[in-house]
């Protein structure tokens, strides 16, 4: 199998503090890869480096055979690598339909045409509705996104992300703040959308990703502690220690 996303010697230093230190990571095409670790392990920093929301101090990032280390975050989205956010990323004052349509609108290329009517966007309505149906928000199609509950906002975010039809998804703690039954639903949804796609997800809890991921990388204090499938990682002495050490935070 080929490598979808690769980081070599990825390092991020903030003033007098190394948040991510020499991380080497390979995400195989078509797999679900989880990046986990206790609080302060550098997961989010690592995630922001990979999605280009932060610029690394050292190291290289390669996506789909292309060096993306110096690219702008909007640029990698256009290459088909789309990220999600910990706090549900919707456009609160736009309707549910408009939220998805803004993503579909990217298919036109850039929307710099300020002189045209927005009626031009109606041709995306059917597609947008299909994506909204898929995540079960049909009855909310004309409501403001701000009025949706937490779980529904997350569903809307997923609908908008899928509208871009990305090859690779980077999910930042998709289960954060979710009740148990929502976790199961989101897990099922992630498995469903993983078909034909590569997924890298950041999570706090090992248990959440147990049934979901093909491969797990454990990060602690900015460095890779262990890597392998769930069986290997969950039995690793260092991993148990890192989690127990952090359990009484």
């Amino acid at each position: 199998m080929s490598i979808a996303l690769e980081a070599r010697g990825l390092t991020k230093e903030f003033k007098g503090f190394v948040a991510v230190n020499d991380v080497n990571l390979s995400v195989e095409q078509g797999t679900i890869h989880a990046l986990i670790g206790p609080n302060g392990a550098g997961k989010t920093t690592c995630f922001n480096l990979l999605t280009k929301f932060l610029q690394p101090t050292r190291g290289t990032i390669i996506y789909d055979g292309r060096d993306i280390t110096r690219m702008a975050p909007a640029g990698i989205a256009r290459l088909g690598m789309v990220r999600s956010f910990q706090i549900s990323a919707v456009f609160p004052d736009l309707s549910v339909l408009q939220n998805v349509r803004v993503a579909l609108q990217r298919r036109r290329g850039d929307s710099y045409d300020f002189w045209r009517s927005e009626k031009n966007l109606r041709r995306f309505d059917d597609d947008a509705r299909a994506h909204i149906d898929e995540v079960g928000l049909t009855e909310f199609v004309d409501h403001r996104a701000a009025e949706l509950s937490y779980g529904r906002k997350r569903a809307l975010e997923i609908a908008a992300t899928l509208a871009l039809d990305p090859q690779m998804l980077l999910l930042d703690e998709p289960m954060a703040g979710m009740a148990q039954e929502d976790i199961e639903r989101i897990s099922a949804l992630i498995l469903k959308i993983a078909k034909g796609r590569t997924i890298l997800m950041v999570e706090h809890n090992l248990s959440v990703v147990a049934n979901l991921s093909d491969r797990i990388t454990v990060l602690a204090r900015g460095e890779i502690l262990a890597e392998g499938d769930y069986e290997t990682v969950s039995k690793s002495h260092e991993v148990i220690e890192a989690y127990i050490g952090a359990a009484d935070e």
Partner: protein
Amino acid sequence: MSIQQTDTPASSPIANDAGMSPLHKAIFLGLLAFLVVLPFMVYPVFAMKIMCFALFAAAFNLLLGFGGLLSFGHAAYFGGASYVAAHAAKVWGLTPELAVLSGAAAAAFLGLIIGSLSIRRQGIYFAMVTLAFAQMVYFVALQAEFTGGEDGIQSVPRGKLFGLISLEDNISLYFFVLALTFGGILFLYRVVHSPFGQVLKAIRENEPRAISLGYDVNRYKLIVFVLSATFAGLAGATKSQVFQLASLTDVHWAMSGEVVLMTLLGGMGTVFGPILGAAMIVTMQNYLATFGAWVTVIQGVIFVIGVLLFREGIIGVISRWLKRPL
């Protein structure tokens, strides 16, 4: 898949698009009908002043209300364009429509330069950078040869529209100004309701998410900045034709503050708020002129009351009551 929730279903559907809503169309038509008869009821120059400031505030509102960018230097485009238009009409002898266009073009150019240097900053830094550039424009207006220093450019000829129709008469000038400002406001309305406007709102609502969808947000911000500067310039250039004058007042930082005031009082991010805000402020200045320096104090008090009572501006509050965007 569906996510079950315990909350009550959201209750207020919103309009999704479909061009201009019937309500907006009705208001625009009513406004136009009102403006057609207005010069026969009040002093036309006063009505034209309101229209120029309404366009200025609407252009500013495009940047603040829909682009989410608070510029504190919009006098540079308004005043800068009025100087260029006055100079074009007086020295180059251009016809009024060309003079106004050259003013707007100059504002667009100025907006492109200042915009590309300032949009990478956010919040208060953006406001300060735009203010600093506007002060430079003020300095040029004060010191340059062609601007006439403290005197400004006076007795600008009104000329003949397309070289044919004399605008000496206030009523003919009024309809020229009406066409420019009303057309300008309608165009700004279209910008907000275009595919571009849709992305702009998305950026205002959640910039990181817009980036993650693949939008080059700085490019969108620059375009909206230039559009806003251009139409602020169109307003300033038109005003110089009305008053036959370009002066330091129009390029002073107080003018940048005044347009913020108009927009916030009327309701930022609304369609009709800036128009109402401009009308109120200009009317106030006109009728309170006898109080001299007290005008600013009264204006300040009204602003404080306005902000305390109607945080979303007057039109913003009405819009919330009616549960309809205005």
